[in-house]
């Protein structure tokens, strides 16, 4: 049985700046990383593999350089890595992205039964949290979002029970497999790759599937298949707030200023 992990390569957002003139992301020289939530999805898949012996396939849709992120997945123990890359996939929104990923997962299912699809809760660049549910809907899988604990996997009975982390409460849900899970960071602590695995992953194959392999209608993928598009990216204007004093050089004086200010606005209970 396969566990498919969807991993998106994202720019390291702590280092991303928005070009104030063009309103686009300044991507030059910014390193790419695996979307942090996705590393938790991968970790969970590896733990299930350790426990049940399922095979883990990491899948990513992106430009050719996304191979680096998949190689890291191989280095921590994924059995196979597939890069979905083709010019015609470019410019995809969440709908078009889900179409490509769903098709790839279906294709994998033809070779070996897919039991679980694991996604991150959301990405740190797009932030829509739509792709996972998009895959579940398209492939008719159970949809378990915001998972922070996997309680039970019943391979024979094809059932999975997980805990979902919601606002102020948890929910325990059981669902038939195949199931798609989106995961939160509390789920686990991703492992660190051992050196032998890293060295070995250096020349393992990252397969590339283009649209010849997936044979999707070009009107359902990429820019053409994307009903939404981005009209503008901008940093919101700072409406309120000011920098008080100089905390670095005069912490005491600054605290005093701050307290006085809060007191004058009647914001501190006296």
């Amino acid at each position, binding site marked *: 049985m396969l566990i498919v992990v969807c991993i998106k390569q994202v720019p*390291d957002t*702590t*280092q991303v700046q928005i070009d104030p003139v063009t309103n686009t992301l300044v991507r030059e020289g910014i*390193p790419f*990383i695996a979307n942090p939530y996705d590393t938790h999805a991968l970790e969970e898949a590896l733990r299930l593999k350790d426990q049940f012996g399922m095979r883990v396939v990491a899948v990513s849709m992106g430009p050719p350089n996304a191979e680096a992120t998949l190689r890291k997945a191989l280095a921590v123990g994924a059995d196979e890595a597939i890069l979905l890359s083709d010019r015609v996939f470019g410019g995809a929104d969440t709908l078009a992205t889900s179409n490509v990923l769903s098709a790839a997962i279906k294709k994998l299912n033809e070779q070996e039964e897919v039991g679980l699809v694991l996604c991150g809760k959301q990405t740190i660049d797009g932030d829509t949290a739509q792709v996972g549910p998009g895959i579940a809907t398209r492939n008719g899988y159970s949809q378990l979002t915001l998972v922070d604990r996997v309680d039970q996997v019943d391979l024979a009975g094809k059932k999975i029970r997980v805990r979902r982390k919601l606002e102020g409460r948890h929910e325990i849900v059981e669902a038939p497999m195949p199931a798609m899970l989106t995961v939160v960071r509390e789920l686990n*602590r*991703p*492992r*660190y*790759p*051992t*050196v*032998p695995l*890293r*060295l*070995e992953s250096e020349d393992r194959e990252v397969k590339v599937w283009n649209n010849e392999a997936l044979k999707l209608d070009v009107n359902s993928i990429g820019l053409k298949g994307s009903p939404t598009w981005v009209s503008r990216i901008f940093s919101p204007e700072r409406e309120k707030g000011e920098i008080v004093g100089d905390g*670095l050089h005069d912490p005491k004086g600054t605290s005093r200023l701050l307290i006085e200010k809060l007191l004058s606005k009647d914001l501190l209970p006296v």
Partner: protein
Amino acid sequence: MTPNFIIYAPLLAVSLLFFSWSCYKRFALIAVGQPENRFEQLDQRIMGVLTYALGQKRVMARSFGLNHAVIFWAFLVLLLANGEFLISGLFPALNLALLPGPIHHLLQFAFDAVSLLALAGVVLAAGRRLFFAPDYMETSYTSAKSAEAFLILGSIALLMLAYFGLHGAMIAMGKESATYMPVSGLASTLLAAVPAENLQALVSFFWWLHALVLLLFINYLPHSKHMHILTAIPNCFFKSLEKPNTQPREEFVKGGRFGAGSVDQLAWKDLLDGFSCTECGRCQSVCPAAITGKPLNPRQVVHDIKINLLKGSLEQDSYVPGQPLIGTGEGSVSEDAIWSCTTCGACMAACPVLIEQMPKVVKMRRHLVQMKSQFPEELLNLFENMEGRSNPWGIAPTDRTKWYATMDVKPFDADTTEYLLYVGCAGSFDSRQKHVTVALAHILDAAGISWGILGKEELCCGDSLRRLGNEFVFDKLAKQNVALFNEKRITKVITQCPHCFTTLKNDYRQYGLELEVIHHSELIDSLLTSGKLKLNHQVKELGKIAFHDSCYLGRHNDVYDPPRNVIAAATGSAPQEFERNHENSFCCGAGGGRMWMEEQLGSRINLNRIEEALAGKPDTLCVSCPYCLTMFADGIKDLQADQIQVKDIAEVVAEGLRPVNQ
């Protein structure tokens, strides 16, 4: 002296055979270690033997050490006496009396006098163990009053007494003269009451006593801590000629094993170390981890490695370990112990026989990190930040230039700037250390130095990675840095951090990068001495300043005087010393990557050091390392000793650069 040849010859033969077999067994075990070249630079090695083994330099560094030195030197002289004894027992005609008279007499006198010294030495040693043993002699597997120790001391005493008894009786019989053997002469007077016909029996008795004790002693050696009698001299010969922390690189090829997860993955010298330990406990007495109650004791590490090695078995050419090297119980080193080490090097500086305790710990870390991905939780972020953003905190590399917001700082350019100021991660990102960077930049400008920085292009030096055993990522980082330094044609580097200092200076040499690396304390010292840097006033406002030697500047790189000179020049008086100073300095607790880990076991190392400082009632603690700065600032807060401030040496000097009226 007519022993019974028929009994003695086979006895001697069996003893020597058994002794050789015991030694062979041990050396065969040492040979299971990994190869490592410890034969280069013979002149330095011979010097090492002369200074540390024959010269007993380290031994004598402690109060009672002279006693050991006397016993050791006596032992060397008596080697000859005992050699003669064993041989002339077989062939009575083969003895030292064959030598020219004056030489023979000189030797007789030497043996006689030295035997007395040795006897006094062992009596004192026994007395020390019984009545005033220092507490560091105690440990889990042995104690000052161990039977083994008294067995050895007792045997030596017995040998000396038998020697005097034998020669005393010979003199009493008129077969030897007391002229050159005053002590034996004295012994003969004690035998005056013995009837002449019994003297021969007495000679035989003492001869056999001497022979039996000697043969038993020789055969006991390889099975006891006194194996060091055989291995200490070679151990000093094979000492590491590198800086303590500059351990061999690992070659990352597929199918390789990295670090040491079993004894046979340690180097042969690590195993020789195990047999060379004298169990003196000095390393334990200076180890910050052991002192603060953590589960690490450097001598226990050495001991456990030896026990582990002995528990395994040699089968044909392969060695089969008897128990895991990393684990619990005697013969294994616990993970908690392995992660407790600050790599301060105090153990290595204290060891009389030049054992390398700390590198073994790092080798085990290499195994845990690289083969097992098993390390304290806190390190996961550190490792990822280092690899992803080349700094411990994971801050955006673009922020590396933020410290000089208000200054005019030039990028390094080999054609126009002389020095690279390697700011370092702490100097770039740590809010407190950024003040130090600014102070240093002002000093460089005031002295008219031509300097520049790498800015956004600067990478972490990788010190913490290497000490934590993440050699794989260190290796990548080191290669990137070496390429960057070569590309920029950098040759002279100023650092404000002893960790950057040692890494660029010593570790990168293993990558073929030879740099002139100068710690800022050295540079400021030379600028003040040459008059290039002139202060506007003598710094009095910081009060009494105590100086703390950072491990990586002092012990690891022998930079002791420059910071002291700087303080003296800036303030007009020499700094106050901590009780433990120079090579005896005590770690702040942050080295070896401990900076990035929680300190949950035992008491806190930084508090131990601050408490020591408080004894001298200083106004300012002066440091020369960003980690020390952090640890001290935290410690002072914890102890509510806010009357004391912590300053880097550059800040002390920058104080003197302020106009007088400010």
